[in-house]
């Protein structure tokens, strides 16, 4: 599907994001758990990637001409499955199997399990290095496809991320877009209290990247950032730092104490879905 084809259905990106949130909540309800705060926070970015920025053919997830969307933070799998369902790459009825035995949708994203899951993520700090090789490979093939590598802000703690950042510039990988989900939350607390990674913008700039920092829950801003990266005018690797709000779209979860693994009571999944259905998106 080209970008033009992506938009043929006249479904707005805002509606795509809403549906992605809804699918993620339904998966959370099935399992009674999941990294739902991250999924809700990233839904707008995913809507832009899958329905505006990335070139793909839902009926052929391995189409050679596709843009490769890597999920480095494997625990966000619930979010990616939701996007893949909305994109028509995964069937909606498989949603019920999320996290279950023999499911194609395990709790952490793995390439061998799921159509559309490009890499095995989860060991954090891996995706950007693989993306460097992928971008090299695309250039070797003289392909005009892109690598879009999503990573979490916590992965900025990993030395391997910065090895990869240096390598991307050194090897002139202007076909690579890193998307940092900057929700300022890690396993043990607020990201900046774990290991100070700010100023993120200046760090990437110093490593030779084209840097944009946007409100990751502002769809128009995210669209503009991807358009800016893919315009082909800046011969550098591109990073889009997306400041996102954990649990975005479900006010009572947004208000809950910030936690890497957000506590959701059994009856709250349905309540959250109801809020989404009523269009009460903050």
């Amino acid at each position, binding site marked *: 599907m080209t970008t033009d084809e992506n938009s043929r259905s006249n479904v707005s990106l805002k509606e795509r994001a809403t549906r992605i949130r809804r699918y993620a909540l339904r998966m959370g309800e099935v399992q009674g758990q999941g990294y739902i705060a991250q999924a809700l926070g990233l839904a707008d970015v995913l809507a832009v990637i899958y329905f505006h920025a990335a070139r793909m053919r839902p009926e052929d997830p391995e189409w050679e001409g596709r843009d*490769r969307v890597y999920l480095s933070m494997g625990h966000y799998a619930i979010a990616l499955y939701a996007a893949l369902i909305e994109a028509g790459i995964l069937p909606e009825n498989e949603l019920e199997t999320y996290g279950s035995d023999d499911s194609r949708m395990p709790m952490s994203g*793995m*390439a*061998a399990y799921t159509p559309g899951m*490009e*890499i*095995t993520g*989860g*060991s954090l*700090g*891996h995706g*950007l*290095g*693989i*993306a*460097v*090789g*992928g*971008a*090299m*490979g*695309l250039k*070797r*093939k003289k392909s005009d496809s892109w*690598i879009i590598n999503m990573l979490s802000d916590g992965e900025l703690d990993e*030395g*391997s991320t910065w*090895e*990869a950042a*240096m*390598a991307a510039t*050194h*090897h002139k990988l202007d076909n690579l877009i890193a998307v940092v989900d900057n929700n300022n939350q890690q396993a043990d607390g607020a990201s900046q209290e774990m290991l100070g990674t700010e100023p993120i913008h200046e760090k990437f700039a110093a490593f030779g990247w084209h840097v944009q920092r946007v409100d990751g829950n502002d769809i128009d801003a995210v669209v503009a950032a991807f358009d800016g990266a893919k315009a082909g005018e800046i011969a550098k690797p591109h990073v889009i730092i997306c400041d996102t709000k954990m649990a975005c779209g479900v006010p009572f979860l947004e208000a809950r104490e910030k936690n890497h693994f957000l506590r959701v009571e059994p009856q709250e999944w349905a309540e959250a879905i109801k809020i989404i259905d009523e269009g009460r998106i903050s």
Partner: protein
Amino acid sequence: MIASLAADGMPVIAAPFGQALNELAQSNDKIVGLSADLAKYTDIHVFRDKYPDRFYQMGMAEQVLVSAAAGLAREGFQSWATTYAVFAARRAYDFICMAIAEENLDVKIIGGLPGLTTGYGPSHQATEDLAIFRGMPNMTILDPCCATDIMQATKALSAYKGPAYMRLLRGNVPDVLGEYGYQFELGKAKMIRDGVDVLYISTGLMTMRVLEAAKKLAKDGVDCAVLHVPTIKPFDAATIAEAAGKTGRLVITAENHTIIGGLGEAVAAELMRRGVHPTFRQIACPDEFLDAGALPTLHERYGLSEDAVIRQTKNWLSE
């Protein structure tokens, strides 16, 4: 320092890995090479110089070295990534495990200075790399003995589509197995010479050592067989058990590696599983951080020299 691996008068071949890779690259344009600031010291400089546009210098950054190798493999290339064995096994382990092995990608990791092949001390002596990689699912693991073995193993690895780790002897590498009419086969142990008193089951450069020892022991009336096991994984347990099951032979494993988790323990476990119980001894490095110093001295100190092999064998035969 590597040249000191060769006994007096042994023929040597320069950069056998690099030569073999170049030969392969001529007919396979999917082959790409990468190194982490050690091209010159892992013989891939030969490839770099002939195919500069197919070689990636990744700098002293082993994590992105192997991750990028994985990314290239994802796009259909066969990646050959070289560094020292210590850095591949210790520093890049998680990246090799998850980005390459778990995804079963066609990446070959080449580790220089395996075991005790440098006198620089523990920072450079990869005495536990086989133990580390044996635990990694999907990995094929090779420890070739000499130049002929390396050249043949490199070709076999290229024909095999999957992740692999190969220990590398670099520079002017002794050529030993050529004279025995040897042919490397992936996953196969090969009987290099037969004998009735002792069965050496050996890998890597220790095959070179036990072959030389066997010649000298023959003069003392000790008849030694040598079974060379260049593929540590998958393990040719059937051939090993059959050879070890021939009664009356003292079985001695010999490896350039710590006594823990390498060839010797792999053989012992397989023999136990199969109910084969010969008298069994191991030649290997001790479970210690080894000394720095001159390589011949260290090989003598830790039992890997030809003289030490002969001495240990005679002692065990007289027990």
